[in-house]
């Protein structure tokens, strides 16, 4: 069993340029920030190292940090430029009984994150969901399709209406001839 600081130190020894930092000042669990384009190797290490043995990805969530430049439009809606989208990985080791949270942040305009699908299979659908609802692109994902919204959603949506959980999302006026707003 290792605590967050020990895990962080072990990671920095092995990947000094991929580990961005450790945030201990969080309400629930300490968070280790990782480079989005190296998360696959870090994950693989976390799973295979015998002192870590993170065999379970409990959850993978996409988050819109909404930390870019916000412009208010006349109708009260908001457009966000710049800033980041993040992915959080909640890991658990069943055998060693310790937990850790990882975080990667990618630029909002070009959110590319490495897939961890071949490290933990359950990441497959979670990553599809983050792609569907937030537009985060997972590199090397075997089947990156929408999972909840209709496959042809893009045909009816403008850029602002493609990914509904983004903070500046706006409904398209119509989908397949059906009016969407109330």
């Amino acid at each position, binding site marked *: 069993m290792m605590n967050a600081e020990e895990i962080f130190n072990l990671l920095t020894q092995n990947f000094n340029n991929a580990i961005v930092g450790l945030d201990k000042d969080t309400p629930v669990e300490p968070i280790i920030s990782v480079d989005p384009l190296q998360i696959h190797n870090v994950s693989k290490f976390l799973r295979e190292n015998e002192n870590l043995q993170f065999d379970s990805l409990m959850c993978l969530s996409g988050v819109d940090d909404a930390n870019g430049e916000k412009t208010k439009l006349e109708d009260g809606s908001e457009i966000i430029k710049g800033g980041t989208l993040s992915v959080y990985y909640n890991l658990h080791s069943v055998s060693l009984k310790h937990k850790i949270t990882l975080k990667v942040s990618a630029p909002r305009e070009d959110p590319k994150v490495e897939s961890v699908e071949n490290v933990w299979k359950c990441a497959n659908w979670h990553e599809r969901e983050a792609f569907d609802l937030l537009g985060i692109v997972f590199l090397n994902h075997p089947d990156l399709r929408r999972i*909840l919204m209709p496959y042809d959603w893009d045909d009816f949506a403008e850029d602002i209406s493609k990914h509904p959980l983004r903070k500046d999302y706006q409904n398209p006026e119509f989908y397949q001839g059906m009016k*969407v707003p*109330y």
Partner: protein
Amino acid sequence: MGLLDKEFSEGNIVIANVEDLLNWARLSSVWQLGFGLACCAIEMMATSMSHYDFDRFGVIPRNTPRQADAIIISGTVTLKMAIRIKRLYEQMSEPKYIISMGSCSNCGGPYWQHGYHVLKGIDRVIPVDVYVPGCPPRPEALLEGLLKLQEKIRNESLRVKST
């Protein structure tokens, strides 16, 4: 209006006009499509069970739209599902009736503002005969909705679909 109010003559012959006979037959056997969407479907199933006994009004579930007279839209209609519901409706043969059950299918319900995936009322896609309010409606409310539909069918004429 009831069929049995009409005159009985010798030899067990009931005299009625064609409209009344047809309407009576239709309203007494409103076969519904076995189809449920969300929590309203649980109430709809409870209505079909022995305690409320939908069957005593002639409502029994059919497994194909081609043999169904009515469809109860029982739950949240997502945009994805709306396309399928429209197809089911088109596959039903005339005369066909629609009961919209619960706030979600009436107007979007709790998803009216932020439900990016929810159709704000099934009447945007197919024509509704009876709206049953509630979230979800109790079985009594659904029965009341059915009685309203029967009333509607009873007053139909051969020339106009419903009054």
